[in-house]
């Protein structure tokens, strides 16, 4: 962009009152801004941008502020004791991050989860997906300056948090999925309440479209901004709704179905335009699809049955390794667990969608305007706590 631009400026030299040509170095013109952790626009994450006027020429992400050693802590606790601390990296999507772990441990220890348990796990996962996506939508709204779009999704999250509290016993810190199934059965009256809340929520989605997605001011800020082509997206390895917004219909629930997802009929939602608007709109389409999935799950669930495989308190399996992944709110969330025959895992590696999506941040920000920085950064669905684990 600026290679043909000449770095020479005319400067008046006061000593002999003539015009002199002075070369300005590249570094003098750039201003370094640290969008750091003490900034209301960045979350627990820091990235430095070098700005030339209004255009960003260099971006350097700096994660690691919330690193708590989750993977190391797993080696000192047995498989069931790992659940409460493993759900903390992304606490408001806790049913997905423990889902993947449970699947991997079940593969290692050869546990078979009963069918009703699988259905309840899928219902809890879909409910959590709604909760997380609404939270992300609220943050996206407030960082575009739309305070109403912060309040409405945060209020509507309450519909699903109420349901999850009825099901699991806690509003946010569920600790519900364990290797072998789920910890308790659905209480009486859960299905009716769930269906009632979902019907009300589908009407609310229409309001969100009216006030936010069809608002010309929001479209002007996000359409055509931050283009990520399909080839670049696949090359950078982004995942989740960011990938689906770049014309790639890839969803792990369809590509590698786990539990009961091969019996559910749903379409993978994707968009062709590959800009920030697509990245903001795909989660809304995902939420609609998720409501549809939940209705099918509530319809097909077997009326009675066990929800949890009978286990000894310290399950252990033969030495081996397992890798399973799950589609969470941010993308593919995978666990690679190596066990050496003892009740405690030997090594746990968590592969999160946020860390992969972060790689797209320098690629998208270079060449963009500084005023577009919030819409690009927050559209990448990046949750810093999960990326740092």
């Amino acid at each position, binding site marked *: 962009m600026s290679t043909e631009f000449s770095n020479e400026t005319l400067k008046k030299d006061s000593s002999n009152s003539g015009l002199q040509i002075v070369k300005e170095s590249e570094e003098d013109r750039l201003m370094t801004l640290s969008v750091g952790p003490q*900034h*209301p*626009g960045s979350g627990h994450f820091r990235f430095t941008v070098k700005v030339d006027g209004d255009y960003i020429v260099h971006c350097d992400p700096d994660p690691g502020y919330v690193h708590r050693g989750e993977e190391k802590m797993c080696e000192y606790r047995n498989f069931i004791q790992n659940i409460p601390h493993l759900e903390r990296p992304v606490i408001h999507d806790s049913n997905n991050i423990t889902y993947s772990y449970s699947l991997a441990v079940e593969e290692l220890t050869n546990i078979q989860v009963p069918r009703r348990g699988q259905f309840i796990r899928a219902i809890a996962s879909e409910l959590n997906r709604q909760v997380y996506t609404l939270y992300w939508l609220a943050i996206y709204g407030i960082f575009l*300056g739309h305070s*109403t779009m912060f309040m409405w999704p945060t209020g509507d999250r309450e519909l699903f948090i109420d349901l999850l509290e009825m099901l699991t016993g806690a509003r946010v810190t569920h600790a519900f999925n364990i290797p072998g199934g789920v910890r308790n059965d659905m209480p009486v009256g859960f299905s009716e309440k769930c269906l009632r809340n979902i019907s009300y929520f589908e009407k609310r989605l229409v309001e969100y479209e009216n006030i936010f997605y069809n608002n010309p001011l929001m479209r002007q800020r996000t359409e055509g901004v931050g283009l990520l082509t399909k080839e670049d997206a696949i090359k950078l390895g982004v995942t989740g709704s960011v990938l689906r917004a770049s014309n790639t219909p890839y969803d792990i629930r369809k590509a590698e179905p786990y539990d009961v997802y091969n019996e559910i009929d749903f379409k993978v939602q994707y968009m062709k335009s590959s800009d920030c608007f697509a990245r903001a709109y795909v989660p809304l389409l995902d939420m609609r699809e998720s409501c549809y999935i939940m209705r099918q799950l509530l319809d097909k669930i077997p009326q009675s049955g066990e929800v949890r495989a009978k286990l000894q308190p310290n399950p252990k399996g033969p030495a081996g390794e397992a890798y399973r992944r799950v589609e969470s709110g941010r993308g593919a969330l995978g666990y690679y667990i190596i066990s050496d025959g003892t009740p405690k895992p030997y090594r746990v590696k968590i592969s999160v969608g946020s860390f992969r999506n972060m790689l797209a941040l320098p690629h998208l920000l270079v060449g963009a305007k500084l*005023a*577009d920085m*919030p819409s690009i950064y927050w559209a990448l669905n990046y949750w810093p706590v999960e990326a740092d684990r």
Partner: protein
Amino acid sequence: MASRGSRIVEFRFGNFVASLIWLILIVLIIVSLAALPLIFIVLFYAPLPPINGQVLTPYLFLSMMVDPTRTLPVLKFIMHTELFRVAVFPGFSFAAIFAAVTIFVERKFLAKMQLRVGPLYAGKIEGILQLIADGLKLISKEIIIPSGADKPIFWAAPIAFVAASAAVISLIPVAPGWVVSNTDVGLLAAFAILGFFPLIALLFSWASNSKYPFIGGLRALHQMIAFEIPFILSALSVVILSGSLNLTHIAAAQSPYWYIFFLPISAFVFFISSLAELERIPFDLPEAESEIVAGWLTETSGMIYGLLQLGTYIKLYALAALFVTLFLGGWAGPQIFPQVLGPPGPQSPLIQLLTLRPIYNPIIVNDVFWFSIKTFGIIMLMLLPRGINPRIRIDILLHTGWYKLIVLSFINMFIALALVYGGVFGPGGVLTPH
């Protein structure tokens, strides 16, 4: 584990009576030791009107306390002095009350639109004393000035901001005859004063010596300058139709039909430009929280922040009142107040006193009422975009201000000229009032 409502003090009648007696005692002490000497000093130096042919001496004034029929003429005299006009009625206190009510109503209105409750706990009824609580909090905070900041400008800029906002108010006519300064170039003076605000924003952001206010101040400068031109051009159409720059004449010229019916585009352009001048959402780039912390207000704290907020809301009232004067007919409205409060005809002095006969002027009260209603309606309309729109980006903002709005106001000027030359308005026109 004391919760909020667990300490209930029981009511004892003896304690209540005792506290009342204490209150009366303290009031008496203050009145006799402080208020009475003050009144005497003021009365010796202030010019007093003659009442019933007698000069009002201080002793006669004090007899007002037992003979209330003498109070009302003095009140009427005070109401027509300059000081009352500047400080109380169409001037600062009126605007400050409007600003205070606006701040509270804005918070509750936005909260209702966002399905939540606004301020709730200050004051018994749904948080009505929240503003007083906020004011007390701001007064008690420490004012932190960044090192390297330019101290004289840092202190002077907020005061200049409030002063400039109050200066715009002094030009607005609330009722015929009730305006602080009735100049023949009122509209031009209003725009001249509005031109100060970018300068104050820039000076304050530069004096803050910090990166984020610097960016915010530049954005404020760009925004306010870009929108001043459509602002002036849209008001120009009104001047073409009414033929005068005097705000009282403009408001009086709209008595049969308001100008908004003839110049709707101009009203729209004026409205959008005033939203941009006030830095309200969707034009609040200079204070964008997500990108530049708080823009050019970042380094303010305590009463400096309080003064800036007061100035902003007074400016909101001023621009809304200007809109009402230019396009909505100022004070025009059907007469709904009766000729006399209470039973008509000659009455006993007591009834005359209680129904405020010497100072009640039904026309003026009616005009003030309609003006207030219309201004409040326009203020509510200005509060509405805050709940609906996100923030606009700087290049779209400048594009809108410099291209679209100027084009629209030129179109409207042609409409105004066509109306004048078509004989509808202007001298000898069909709809011109005499």
